[in-house]
């Protein structure tokens, strides 16, 4: 069952986490690169809410939200961004390379599109092993142009794999509007090319996302094969730090802010009488606290050992 308050908490945590990441970058406290998902929290949370513990999720370069929604410890995630030994990849991976199978989280991934093939393999193994695991693979509208996604969907369809490919259509691939990268209006249309189920949902509505995934996962568990779900949303943040956002107008962004999922769920929760203004404040404060603790944990964590930097190349 979809629990809106829980979804709200997760979305809040993600939002605060991502805001903190942007601030930490601008202050020079963390280095490297990261892609934040402000505005897209509902897809992450809606998908994760519909999954069972045994299910698997693969993510993208923009993966903090997916990972947090799936249950990541914000402290260890933050520690990875700080390059600390306590990070999910012991400081070796950074934002784009974290994995925690114990949480059914099979990786952020710096190679656009690559994780969908990997996810197909997870689904294949789930099928071979006779488990009822379902695998969800996130990818972006921009990633939909990668051939490997075509290959993976074709393969999944032929083999009836329990794979749900979820396109986060956030309007852009870096600076490229979907209209310049995707030759159809909706990525979901491409389900036809594989004879699989395709659907589009409001990606800013966590319940809609949850319900769509729950139904498709149920089908997948019963051997119904793969599906393609498109979640329409908007990337409110820049692509990554340093993005001047010259490829779109502030007006467009303002309009998108009026649709943004966090305000929407807050309004829904108040309208339904679930949470009042004071309760909202308490939830917000809790999220802030968790993020502050995550930063504190990360900063207090030891640096990785330089002497062993070359170790562990092989399992």
């Amino acid at each position, binding site marked *: 069952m979809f629990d809106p308050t829980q979804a709200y908490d997760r979305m809040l945590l993600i939002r605060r986490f991502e805001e903190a990441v942007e601030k930490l970058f601008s202050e020079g406290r963390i280095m490297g690169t990261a892609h934040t998902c402000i505005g897209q929290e509902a897809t992450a949370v809606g998908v994760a809410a519909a999954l069972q513990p045994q299910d*698997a999720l693969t993510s993208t370069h923009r993966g903090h939200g997916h990972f947090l929604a799936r249950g990541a410890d914000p402290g260890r995630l933050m520690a990875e961004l700080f390059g600390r030994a306590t990070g999910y*990849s*012991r400081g*070796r*991976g950074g934002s784009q*390379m*974290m*994995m925690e*199978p114990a949480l059914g989280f*099979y*990786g952020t*991934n*710096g*190679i656009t599109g*690559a994780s*969908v*093939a*990997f*996810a*197909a*393999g*997870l*689904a*294949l*193994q*789930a099928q*071979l*092993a006779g488990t009822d695991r379902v695998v969800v693979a996130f990818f972006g509208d921009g990633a939909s142009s990668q*051939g*490997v996604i*075509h*290959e*993976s969907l*074709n*393969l999944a369809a*032929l083999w009836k794999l329990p794979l749900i490919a979820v396109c986060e259509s956030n309007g852009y691939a870096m600076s490229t509007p979907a209209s310049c990268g995707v030759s159809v209006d909706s990525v979901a249309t491409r389900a036809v090319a594989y004879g699989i189920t395709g659907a589009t949902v409001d990606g800013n509505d966590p319940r809609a996302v949850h319900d769509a995934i729950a139904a498709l996962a149920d089908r997948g568990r019963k051997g119904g094969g793969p599906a393609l779900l498109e979640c329409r949303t908007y990337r409110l943040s820049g692509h990554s730090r340093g993005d001047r956002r010259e490829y779109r107008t502030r007006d467009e962004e303002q309009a998108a802010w009026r649709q943004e999922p966090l305000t929407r769920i807050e309004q829904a929760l108040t309208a339904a009488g679930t949470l009042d203004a004071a309760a909202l404040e308490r939830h917000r404060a809790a999220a802030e606290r968790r993020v502050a603790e995550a930063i504190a944990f990360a900063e207090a964590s030891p640096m990785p050992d330089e002497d062993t930097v070359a170790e*562990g*190349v*092989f*399992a």
Partner: protein
Amino acid sequence: MSPLTTTQILRETLAAELRRDPAVFLMGEDIGAYGGSFGVTRGLIDEFGATRIRNTPISEPGFVGAAIGAAVAGARPVVEIMFMDFITLAVDQLVNMAAKLAYVYNQSCPLVIRTPMGGGRGYGATHSQCLERLFFGVPGIRIVAPATGADASALLQSAIRDPNPVLLLEHKLLYPLRWELDAVPTPPVPLGQARIARRGSDLTVIAWSWCAFEAERAAAQLAAEEIEAEVIDLRSLNPLDIETLAASARKTRRVLIVEEGPRTGGIAAEIGSQLHERVFGDLEFPVQRLAMPDCPVPSARSLEAAVMPGAEVIAAAARDLATRV
């Protein structure tokens, strides 16, 4: 046992591994009823079925990526890439994912990629390449290359049981050769141990895969001329058994490395550099490399033969080095 071809040995070893470990499965283009382009998997589908002997669509990036995912999830996929030249389509998957899994993500990836490589069949520039060099400089990928029937079985087993991505190079010219073996599968050998194929004191000839086979033939010729070549078959390129190579180099003081592949930027360059770094003072001459010219593999048999480093040219180069003053 009557002599078996390398193809048969590989097939029986695959069958044994499939029987031994239910996590093992095979995937690749036309490996089912067709048995793969070179027939290695022929008939396996009858015993193991289409689920474990899994034909894939023609989607190298996709199915290699999927195999990596399956391996991380606990399977032991053995993938056939129909010709090594086509592995170029899956370099991203192997370099950016498979090779990084242990180091960055702390995950094991027990994946084997078997692939026929090399020239000698007149197949032309996109069906004849030895491309181990694409992966040799990428940490995280093991590379093995049997030159004998026994090693084909031994290394295949070790590759399948290893928790890492392993590239197994099968030379097309080795497939039809027949080997007398006591039993198949043969005992596995640890990855990373070179094989001293022949003892000798006049020079060391280092090679792998088909060239190692040819080097042994060359050494036999040379023995008739009273030139005693020590032939070392690498068997494993990563890890590289540099100790064995260095010990031989110290003894013979003259080293020839033979490589099928363009001269520039090959494996021989690395071996040569490591040997110079270790045994410089013991060498009478710099390490010599015998390789192909820096050009694609031409398809005409006459042209192809002119670029492949077979026993004759190996013998000539070895003779030259052994008798140099």
